[in-house]
């Protein structure tokens, strides 16, 4: 999907950008055409920036009357073939969950940016708190899998948003970008690559050439393996006659109740079978590490410094970073933690949502130490202290 006026891409080079703006620019680069949103601190800069930028690329930025309207407008736009997204914060996300569950059922591709703030309830609106990590996993009724990214810098907000749109087109499940109040408002240098390079990475919404026969089916005709069909476009011939959010086959035909399990399997296995392709992780000084830090988002930045300091003191410690938080890379974590002396999980929430997931897949005799912080960032010393205590 090219556009004539060429304003979709910024000139390549270095820019000082706010996190929310970098995320919006990433979305524009991947071909965003519709943004439906509602002002809520700390995500408001996204809609403010796109209100200026989207008309320039022939898109539409629509401020709706509430969060429910925003997400449903996004669903509508996505159904007719536009790349669409919304951005909100925790209270907005909770209002949108019904539609997220519906979108998961009819597999509408969309990207959802959650700029998290301190909760519960209204909470403190301008400080971060990674308290929606659990909510995104279970956002809405019913069973479905989601994909959630946890960027840690403005550059990553730009890059991962492009990846997020590609995932939306490929896997057709709710895609979340877990930003937070500090990451959204921080100003950092963002390196914008040339247009050609970005275009190589972007997957566009197209109607497949060979649409005859089994165009919407989940099974490959030849190999009988589970496959994910391309998202359909309402208003073209590449569209089922009826779009319903009940257990259905891809032609829009209602499945009998006894086949619900089969439908559930399709919805969930399409992500679980591809987890190696989906899940993005990063390792830092893990080869000889005895103590392992598992983290995501902003605390990773403090962890890098803490690991360097600890290494100078002769403590063997490394970082396993989750770039995609959901689906949780169970097998990868299992491999990493073999033989570890201890695992440290610095998280910006008190309960330790990911620490619980790590507990689930590790040996009982490996201690898991949570380093919780709420409404403020981790200082490298906080993590270093935890490392030293374990190393004793």
């Amino acid at each position, binding site marked *: 999907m090219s556009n004539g006026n060429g304003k979709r891409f910024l000139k390549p080079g270095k820019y000082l950008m706010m996190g929310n703006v970098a995320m919006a620019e990433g979305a524009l680069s991947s071909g965003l055409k519709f943004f439906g949103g509602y*002002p809520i601190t700390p995500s408001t800069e996204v809609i403010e920036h796109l*209100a200026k930028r989207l008309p320039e690329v022939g898109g539409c*930025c629509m*401020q709706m*009357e*509430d969060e429910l309207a925003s997400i449903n407008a996004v669903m509508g736009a996505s159904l007719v073939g536009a790349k669409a997204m919304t951005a909100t914060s925790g209270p907005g996300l909770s209002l949108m969950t019904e539609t997220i569950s519906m979108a998961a059922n009819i597999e509408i591709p969309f990207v959802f940016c959650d700029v998290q703030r301190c909760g519960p309830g*209204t909470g403190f609106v301008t400080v971060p708190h990674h308290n929606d990590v659990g909510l995104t996993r279970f956002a809405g009724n019913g069973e479905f899998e989601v994909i959630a990214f946890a960027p840690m810098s403005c550059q990553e907000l730009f890059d991962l948003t492009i990846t997020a749109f590609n995932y939306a087109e490929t896997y057709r499940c709710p895609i979340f970008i877990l930003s937070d109040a500090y990451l959204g408002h921080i100003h950092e240098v963002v390196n914008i690559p040339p247009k050609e390079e970005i275009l190589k990475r972007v997957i566009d919404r197209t109607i497949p050439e060979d649409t005859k026969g089994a165009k919407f089916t989940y099974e490959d005709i030849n190999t009988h393996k589970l496959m994910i069909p391309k998202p359909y476009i309402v208003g073209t011939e590449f569209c089922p006659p009826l779009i319903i959010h009940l257990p259905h086959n891809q032609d829009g035909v209602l499945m009998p109740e006894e086949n619900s399990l089969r439908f559930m399997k399709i919805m969930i296995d399409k992500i679980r079978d591809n987890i190696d392709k989906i899940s993005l992780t990063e390792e830092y000084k893990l080869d000889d590490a005895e103590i392992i830090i598992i983290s995501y988002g902003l605390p990773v930045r403090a962890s890098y410094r803490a690991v360097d300091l600890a290494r100078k003191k002769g403590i063997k410690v490394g970082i396993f970073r989750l770039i995609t938080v959901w689906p949780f890379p169970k097998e990868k974590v299992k491999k990493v933690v073999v033989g570890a002396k201890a695992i440290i999980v610095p998280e910006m929430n008190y309960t330790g949502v990911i620490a619980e997931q790590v507990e689930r897949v590790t040996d009982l005799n490996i201690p898991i130490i949570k380093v919780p912080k709420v409404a403020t960032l981790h200082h490298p010393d906080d993590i270093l202290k935890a490392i030293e205590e374990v190393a004793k």
Partner: protein
Amino acid sequence: MADKVKLYDIPEEEFLLPGNRMCSGCGLSLIYRTALKALGPNTIITVPASCLTVLHGMQGFTSVDKISVLNTPFATVAASASGIEAALEAMGKDDKVTCVAFAGDGGTTDIGIQGLSGAAERKTNFIYACYDNEAYMNTGVQRSGSTPYGSITTTTPIYGKTEHKKNMPKILEAHDIPYVATSCAAYPLDIYAKFKRAKEIKGTKYIHILSPCPPGWGFSTKDTIKIGKLAVETGFWPLYEIENGKFLLSNPSKRLLDPAKRKPIELYLSVQKRFKRLSNEQIEEYKRYINQSWEYIKSKNITTQFL
């Protein structure tokens, strides 16, 4: 109908103490201070996310005194008030305590309209006050349903808003509630009289108050009263009340039935930065809009004055 109020009728007792968190020149501080004087100490106020939450501040640091305030989710201010009112009635305390929902224009015209309409339909015995600063000011000036035509906001940054303001009092009038009134921050005596009257009536009462906002509208903080008066005197914001279907123009707006007595709308538009990109055609459209709304008022005024 609201009684005529003189300055010495307003009690000296203060419920909003000096030193709150509002911007200087805020119309809302004036409205809230005057409204609380009319409502008195036995009042429960529900407040959604809005500038008013900022005014209340935090426990221990609040400048609001002697009343109870409940902070509710954004969409639910009228629903919360319905619950409070129903419980007060069940416990036989509804005669002693006044239940008030105080929301901004976003919380009323956009996200809160469903709850408000439901409460009005159930004939909930409460006062719903909407202070209208014509955009989402608390999050930094985004358009709302109540933002006027041609106004530049951060989400209508290029052409300004292309639609007219949603006429909320008219929507509430269609709910057949016993009392609907409009007022403006520049007329504290009018605000006091209307809240006083609303407190006496049983049923759902709706008061819509225009609240000039210096940072959002783009004028100097000393001009709040001037801008508020201009909004009324140009005929852009008519002050009236409708009690049990009987329509009455309030004093500041009474003489404006004659179009010659209205000040030119340019006076109001030219002093605010949010209207800086208005074209001549858009100003003409404003004149047409004002004439049209006064035609409606005229028809209401004539049909009800002999009732």
